[in-house]
């Protein structure tokens, strides 16, 4: 069976990824990188579960964090309840309980949300998400109020094959195992009757009804199953961070998972994984450099919506198609030529934003307003027009050059694509 899940090439790919995931901490021993990898693993599961809705069933949800958050709280409470009675094995299995909590939430909330599809579904999920978030503040006994609920993932004195999950690198191993299990399960789901009918419902709900399927039921089941995997991700986050706050289930978290899945590419199974890696790394790296990180991220997202709505994965797929057709070489010089003006434009924009940020808020606190700031070691006087004019000029030059060279890139791109499709036909 060539299309089996465990075909030889696919097994090799999965195996290679698993080996790489386990090898990474052996090479990169820094604690910072291992925490980063843990975060990526959790977000990958969470955003894959999100894409079961958006990419596979065509359901745009603004409240997916509810399942993630409830899974996290359930895991944390159980961890604390078991306390000394447990051991590393029970701890390792706890994310499954998180999954069950997400699944239960999916049954209750999905019953309401999946009565509608399309835009209405999006609005309802937003409302339901807000409702759960508001409820979480109402019951501090369960959700821990402002401080959240914390716990300790190391319980008892025993070990499991020498593991206690205490050190971050052991936790990383646990996350990798769970992430792989979930990824394989979610991929397998795309290859089942329900998974395929979810695609059918996404493409054409009316036709799906006329081949005998209740579209509401298909959506409902997909929400429940996706709630399970989101809950597992939440459970992993509870163990990883050893604290769960109400923020894990609010609109911000729901928004972030949407951004991750979209930027990665919702049309491809592995798209959200790319998104999770990219966004998490960007968040840590750029977020560490500037306070305006969220603004950059938002602008990047808008740029992706307008220019590459298929996400990073679609860009990769197109390049691979070009490469296989022997056309990539034709495009490479144009990519290189466009990179320079885009970099100039970016430098100008970043300069403007950073200057504005420094002037208006400053390091001294909100509204304080600095008169001087340091950029790349240069001492800049914000009160003088010099830095501003420079940034403005760089931006202007960037815009002109980008338009000029970008136009040539576009015509070459269209010509190359035409050749590509011509070859296929």
């Amino acid at each position, binding site marked *: 069976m060539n299309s089996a899940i465990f075909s030889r090439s696919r097994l090799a790919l999965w195996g290679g990824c698993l080996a790489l995931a386990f090898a990474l901490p052996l090479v990169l021993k820094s604690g910072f990188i291992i925490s980063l990898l843990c975060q990526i693993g959790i977000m990958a599961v969470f955003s894959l579960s999100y894409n079961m809705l958006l990419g596979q069933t065509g359901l745009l949800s603004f409240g997916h964090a509810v399942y993630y958050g409830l899974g996290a709280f359930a895991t944390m409470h159980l961890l604390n309840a078991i306390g000394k009675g447990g051991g590393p094995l029970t701890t390792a299995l706890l994310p499954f309980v998180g999954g069950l909590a997400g699944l239960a939430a999916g049954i209750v909330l999905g019953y309401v949300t999946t009565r509608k599809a399309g*835009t209405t579904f999006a*609005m309802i999920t937003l*409302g339901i998400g807000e409702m759960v978030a508001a409820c979480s503040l109402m019951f501090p006994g369960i959700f821990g109020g402002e401080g959240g609920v914390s716990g300790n993932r190391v319980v008892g004195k025993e070990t499991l094959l020498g593991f206690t999950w205490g050190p971050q690198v052991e936790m990383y191993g646990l996350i990798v195992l769970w992430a792989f299990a979930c990824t394989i399960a979610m991929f397998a789901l795309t290859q089942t009757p329900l998974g395929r009918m979810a695609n059918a419902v996404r493409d054409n709900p009316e036709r799906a009804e006329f081949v005998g399927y209740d579209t509401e039921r298909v959506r409902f089941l997909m929400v429940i199953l996706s709630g399970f995997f989101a809950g597992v991700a939440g459970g992993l986050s509870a163990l990883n961070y050893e604290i769960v706050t109400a923020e894990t289930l609010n609109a911000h978290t729901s928004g972030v998972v949407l951004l991750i899945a979209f930027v990665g590419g919702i049309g491809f199974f592995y798209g959200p994984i790319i998104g999770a890696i990219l966004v998490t790394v960007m968040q840590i790296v750029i977020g560490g450099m500037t306070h305006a990180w969220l*603004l950059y991220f*938002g602008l990047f997202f*808008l740029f992706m919506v*307008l220019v590459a709505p298929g996400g990073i994965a679609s860009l990769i797929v197109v390049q691979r198609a070009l490469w296989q057709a022997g056309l990539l070489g034709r495009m490479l010089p144009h990519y290189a030529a466009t990179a320079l003006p885009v970099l100039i434009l970016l430098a100008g924009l970043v300069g403007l934003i950073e200057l*504005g940020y420094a002037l208006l808020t400053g390091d001294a606190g*909100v509204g304080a307003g600095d008169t001087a700031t340091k950029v790349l070691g240069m001492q800049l006087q914000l009160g003088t027009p010099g830095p501003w004019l420079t940034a403005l000029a760089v931006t202007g030059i960037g815009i002109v050059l980008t338009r000029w060279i970008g136009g040539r890139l576009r015509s070459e791109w269209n010509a190359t694509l035409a050749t590509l499709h011509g070859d296929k036909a």
Partner: protein
Amino acid sequence: MEFVVISLLNGITYGLLLFMLSSGLTLIFSMMGILNFAHASFYMLGAYFAYQISTLVGFWPGLLVAPLLVGAVGALVERYGLRRAHRFGHVAELLFTFGLAFVVEEVVHLIWGKVAVDYKIPDELDGTLFTLFDTAFPMYRGFMMLVSVGMLVALYALLTRTRIGLIIQAALTKPDMVEALGHNVPRIFMLVFGGGTALAGLAGVIGGNAFITEPGMAAAVGSIVFVIVVVGGLGSLGGAFIASLLIGCIQTFSVGLSISITDVFALIGVELLEGSQVARLTITQLAPVLPYLLMVAILIFRPRGLMGAREN
């Protein structure tokens, strides 16, 4: 009694403000098929613009200029953003407005900081309109009501009495037909989007100082406006109106009621177990959740909304 009357007046004021938002959202949705996720962001922009103008030249110029500025921003967003996203379908449009809401919030953080700004009610309107029993009804609430009602009358007249209004009404149901008749539908779209966002901006101008002007205001109001649109029925102006007033009143009343769930159940003769967390909650504490509970109830018992005609 006095609680009821004052709460009712406050509820209607708030409801009318909500309708200024939900009507714009409904017009844009009906016409362009776009659910403007960033609608409440324009409300926030209105408040911040008005605040900035009021610190420079005072409240009254801002009342006029801020909504126009917001409308201009809206028209630009439609022209250079949404129209482009439109090629990729409705999900791309919705995601674009979602990203926009994200960016607007960050820009507001950037320019005005993360805490509330001191956007004041103008001195001329800072006083008591009348006193009922022992409770004063502020003059500014009366002014809000006046502006909202004036705006509604103007909107109604525009939609029913003018040529452009008739075209917009026609385009609400049959955009292809209107285009076939030779009207420039893209320009009408830009106008409607600009108009709808200007309306949201005006709501921000008069709501920002009555309530609070802070970066979280968009998210707080935004989800309520969505609830209104779902409860009223997607695409129905009449439904949006009723739902706005309903939710305005629910929120105002529930904030003022300090009786607990146990008391409520006691009224109908049911004794709740003492001590559980749910039983001790008061209506006031429940206030933030009530609109959503209403939405869930509507979805279960009347899925197309109060006045909604079409399914999806």
